[in-house]
């Protein structure tokens, strides 16, 4: 069943149309990546899904009661607000210390519990945000350029963590990324956005479309080839949404 479904969604800020007729479907357990140049409306698309902007036309349907875990772009955390990692994690709903530690472990940073949010590094910060999103036991993780500001090994490690989380918890993932070559190998579906959906499909299908080449040039081809790996396992989706990894 579709967790998130967009039909012919158009979003405008004032007179400028940012998104035109966008269709998107997210199924449970699926990793969907949105790529696109700056100003192509990627963040607006996520905002429309979480409800912080309203579409001008079209419909956005979420599965009733859908639990979304949102990992934003690097937040500007003001030093004026004192906040430990533990307190940050229990901000929306009260959670126990053990649950905090468990979520931090799953995100790969168990040692940060007592640190101040303003004192940790960029990479640690994103993992804390991931831990926070995981605490709500989400059915969908939404990531908005979550690795901005991280170096390449840092982003690669972060996305491996996302894939691990997906495999362990079975949650669907919808993410925006600039790091095409790092992200694509892990995605089930890639949507190439430039105000409208240019092309969509499996990573290999998208890579071979002329629209994609036009947007990103052939220059990245080498880097992509370098990072692509063969899918040595298959994800099967049965009707209940459970996932079988063979």
């Amino acid at each position, binding site marked *: 069943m579709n967790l998130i479904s967009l039909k012919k969604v158009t979003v405008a800020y004032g007179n400028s149309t940012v998104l035109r007729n966008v269709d998107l479907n997210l199924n449970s357990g699926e990793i969907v990546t949105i790529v696109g140049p700056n100003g192509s409306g990627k963040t607006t698309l996520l*905002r429309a899904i*979480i*409800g*912080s902007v309203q579409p001008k036309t079209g419909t956005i349907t979420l599965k009733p009661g859908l639990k*979304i875990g*949102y990992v*934003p772009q690097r*937040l500007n*955390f*003001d030093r*004026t*607000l*004192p*906040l*430990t990692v533990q*307190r940050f994690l229990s*901000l*929306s709903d009260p959670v126990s210390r053990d649950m905090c530690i468990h979520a931090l472990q799953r995100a790969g940073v168990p040692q940060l519990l007592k640190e*101040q949010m303003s004192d940790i590094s960029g990479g640690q910060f994103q993992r804390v945000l991931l831990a926070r999103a995981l605490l709500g036991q989400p059915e969908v993780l*939404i990531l*908005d350029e979550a690795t901005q500001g991280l170096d390449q090994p840092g982003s690669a490690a972060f996305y491996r963590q996302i894939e691990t989380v997906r495999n362990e918890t079975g949650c669907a993932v919808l993410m925006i990324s600039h790091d095409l070559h790092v992200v694509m190998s892990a995605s089930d579906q890639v949507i190439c956005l430039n105000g409208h959906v240019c092309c969509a499909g499996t990573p290999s299908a998208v890579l071979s479309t002329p629209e994609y080449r036009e947007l990103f040039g052939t220059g990245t081809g080498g880097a992509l080839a370098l990072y692509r790996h063969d899918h040595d396992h298959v994800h099967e989706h049965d009707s209940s949404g459970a996932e079988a990894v063979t």
Partner: protein
Amino acid sequence: MLDDFLVRAGLGGLGVVLAAAPLGCFVVWRRMAYFGEATAHGAMLGVALSLAFEQSIFIGPLIVAVLMAWTVSLFSQRNYATDTILGVFAHSALALGLVVVSFISGVRIDLMAYLFGDILAVSGSDLAIIWGGVVLICGLMAWRWTPLLLATLNEELAYAAGIKPKREQLILTLSLGITVAVSIKVVGILLIAAMLIIPAAAARQLARTPEGMVALTAVIGAISVITGLSAAYRFDTPTAPSIVCVSLGLFCVFSILGALKHR
């Protein structure tokens, strides 16, 4: 016990710092210092209107505070930075208030009492209103605490958690209006912003969590009121400014402690 004017002054002051503690922290976290000051200055117009229509001195400032917030958000979407709009309306409201007051005949109005407060003249019924305001604000803050914190931290995070940041902003503005309204009698229009900002700024140095910071802010405010009040009584200095001076002293002490801690 309430017959003693010093006890009433103390209770009035403690009420104000209790209400100002959570609001002051939000003012510091959200960089609303100028907004707080503008709301306070705008209260002069509120006082004038209250006097003109012979209403309670608490009603006018509350209405003006809300109108001010609404006008500011309306205008800041039109090519002005918020601080410019605040500058326009804060000082206009202060000036307009002073002009309106001059038209009110019959009563002789002690302007100084409104500008700098008259904590030693706090009456039993004033106390009832001040503490009513305290209960209202603490209730509002306790009820909306988590949404307010999330909306302060990051709007997108708030939206994703199903919170409407605009509504939380309105609740803060309303609470700020109430705080200003109940503080006029105690610290006066010109020094309300000091009671909002200084204790919270001092508390930031040692606080580790938002709740800890609010609690510490309340303690620092309470020490300021009690010490400032006794100093004013003993050395015959103006009361509200003495309270603010003690706050400043505590701010310096906490800054030094904070610097030592982070070394």
